[in-house]
C-alpha cells in the first residue's frame, strides 16, 4: 500500500491561515491502513485546527468527510454538491487525492495534509517500510524474492557494496542491508551461482525516469 506521513500541524495551519470555512477529506484506502488519513485522522486534524484557531481567538468552521477512495472519479464526484461552500479543502489522502480533487474541482483551493512516501507494508503494528519503487520491470525473483532497486540505498543489481556491515546499510544502523539478506537467503537456497552471474544495466524506461506513466486495460475501456 501507499504509506504517507502527516505533515507537521504548523505547516497545515499555515496553509489555511487565511480561510474561514474548510473541509478535511480523508480516504478509506491506504492512508486509513497506515493510520494517517482515515476517518479517525480526519477527526483529529479537524479538532487540532479548531483548537489552534480557538486559542488564537480566530473563527473557523472545519467540516469532516471521508471518501471511499480519492483516486476514483466516482467517489470524488460525491463532493460535488457541497465542496464549493468551502474556502479551502485539506486532503489527507496520498498525493493522488489532492490532485484528483484539484482536477475535478478546479475552482477550489486544495491542500495536501500528508507527505506521501513509499509503497510498502507493515512490519509490525505501527511500523511500515518500503518495499517497492515502482520501477516498472519487476525482477524480485532474481534476488530471492527481495527487491534491491527499492531496498538497496544505491539500487545495486550486483551488490553488496563495500559499505555493508553487520547486515546494515552504510547510511544508517537502522537500515537493513538488503544485499546481505539476499546473499544469505540465496546461499541457503543453494542459488549462489545465480548471484555470481553478471546482471546487466537496467532499463529505466519503464520507471519514472521514462516519463509519467499510464496503464490502460483496453478490454475495460468503454
Amino acid at each position, binding site marked *: 500500500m501507499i504509506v504517507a506521513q502527516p505533515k507537521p500541524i504548523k505547516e497545515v495551519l499555515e496553509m489555511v491561515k487565511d480561510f474561514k470555512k474548510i473541509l478535511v477529506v480523508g480516504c478509506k484506502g491506504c492512508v486509513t491502513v497506515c493510520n494517517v488519513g482515515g476517518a479517525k485522522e480526519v477527526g483529529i486534524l479537524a479538532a487540532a485546527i479548531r483548537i489552534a484557531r480557538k486559542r488564537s481567538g480566530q473563527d473557523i468552521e472545519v467540516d469532516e468527510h471521508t471518501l471511499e477512495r480519492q483516486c476514483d472519479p466516482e467517489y470524488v464526484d460525491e463532493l460535488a454538491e457541497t465542496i464549493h461552500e468551502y474556502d479551502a479543502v485539506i486532503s489527507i489522502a496520498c498525493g493522488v487525492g489532492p490532485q484528483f480533487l484539484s482536477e475535478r474541482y478546479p475552482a477550489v483551493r486544495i491542500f495536501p495534509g500528508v507527505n506521501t512516501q513509499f509503497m510498502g507494508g507493515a512490519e509490525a503494528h505501527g511500523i511500515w517500510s518500503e518495499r517497492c519503487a515502482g520501477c516498472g520491470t519487476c525482477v524480485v525473483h532474481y534476488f530471492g524474492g527481495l527487491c534491491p532497486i527499492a531496498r538497496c*540505498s*544505491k*539500487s*545495486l*543489481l*550486483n*551488490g*553488496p*557494496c*563495500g*559499505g*555493508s*556491515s*553487520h*547486515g546494515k546499510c*552504510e*547510511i544508517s544502523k537502522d537500515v537493513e*542491508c538488503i544485499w*546481505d539478506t539476499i*546473499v*544469505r537467503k540465496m*546461499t541457503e537456497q543453494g542459488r*549462489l551461482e545465480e*548471484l*555470481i552471474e*553478471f*546482471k*546487466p*544495466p*537496467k532499463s*529505466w524506461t519503464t520507471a519514472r525516469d521514462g516519463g509519467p506513466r499510464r496503464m490502460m486495460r483496453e478490454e475495460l475501456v468503454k
Partner: protein
Amino acid sequence: MSGYKAGSNLEKVLKSGQFAFTGECGPPQGANVEHLREKAGHLKGCVDAVNVTDNQTAVVRMSSWAASLILLQEGLEPNFQMVCRDRNRLAIQSDILGVYSLGVRNMLCLSGDHQSFGNHPDAKNVFDIDSMQLIHTVKTMRDDGKFLNGQDVDVPPKLFIGAASNPFAEPFDFRVYRLAKKIAAGADFIQTQCIYNMDRFREFMKRAVDMGLHEKCYILAGVTPMKSVGMALYMAKQVPGMDVPDSLIQRLRGAGKGKVAEEGIRYALEQIEEFKEMEGVAGVHLMAIEWEHRVPEIAERAGVLPRPVV
C-alpha cells in the same frame, strides 16, 4: 604496445612481475591547483600511479578527471576514479572518452559512498548503473569498441581497468565471489580497502588464490598508516566495512605520547613486508591521505625505491 591493454606505467610494472606501489591524492575542495601540485609533487618518483578520488565521501571536490589531467601535466600517472553515484551512463561513457583522449590510461570503477555521508545530502542519487556494470562498460568500449547500446565507438578508449575490493565487508564469505565477479566483468587490477586485520586478509587471499583469481587480475593490498589512536578509533567505529583489531589499537596506545604516528608507520611497514611475499598479492596501494609528504620516507623504509622503469 602489443600485449598491453592500455600501456600505462602501472600496467607495465605489474605485467613485468615486479611489485607495484601506488599512492593516492585527493583533489582540492576548490580550484586550489597549487596545493594539488604540491601534494602530488611529494609522490613523484615514489609510486607507479596515483589514485585521484572522485567526490570522495560525497564531498564536492574538483572532479577526478580534471585533477588527473593536472597530475599528467606534473609528470605523474593518475588512476582516474569514477563513482556511480553522480553520473548516468551517458555522462559516464562521455567522460571515459574524454579522459582517454587527454592521456589518462588507468581507470578505477567504484560505487561511491552514499550522498548522505557528504556535504550535499539533499542531492538526487544517480546509480543508473553499478560498479560491476561500470567495469563491464569500460571493457565493452575498450575491447569490443562498442557503447552500451551496441553502437560503435569510433576510436575505442584503451584504459587499464581497476576496481575496489573490500575483504572485510559482509557477508564475508561472499566477498571473494564478488571479487571473482568483478574480474569476470573485466577488472584488470584490484585495490583492496585498507587492511588492518591481517588474519582475515590472509584467509581472504587464500580463497582468492584457490580460485585462481590472482592469475586473471593483479591484486594490490591497501595500506593506510594510522596517525593517531583517535584515527584508529574513528576508523574502527565510524567507517563502514572497516575492520580494526583491538590488538592494533592497544599497540598504538602503548607507543607513548608523540610516538603513535611512528608506531602506525612501523605497523604499515610490517604489513608491506608481508605483502611482498604473500601469494597472490601483486603490489601495495598506499593511502596516506593528507600525509603525502611522508610517502617518500615510507617508500624508502619499505624498500620499494627506486620505482621500476619498464
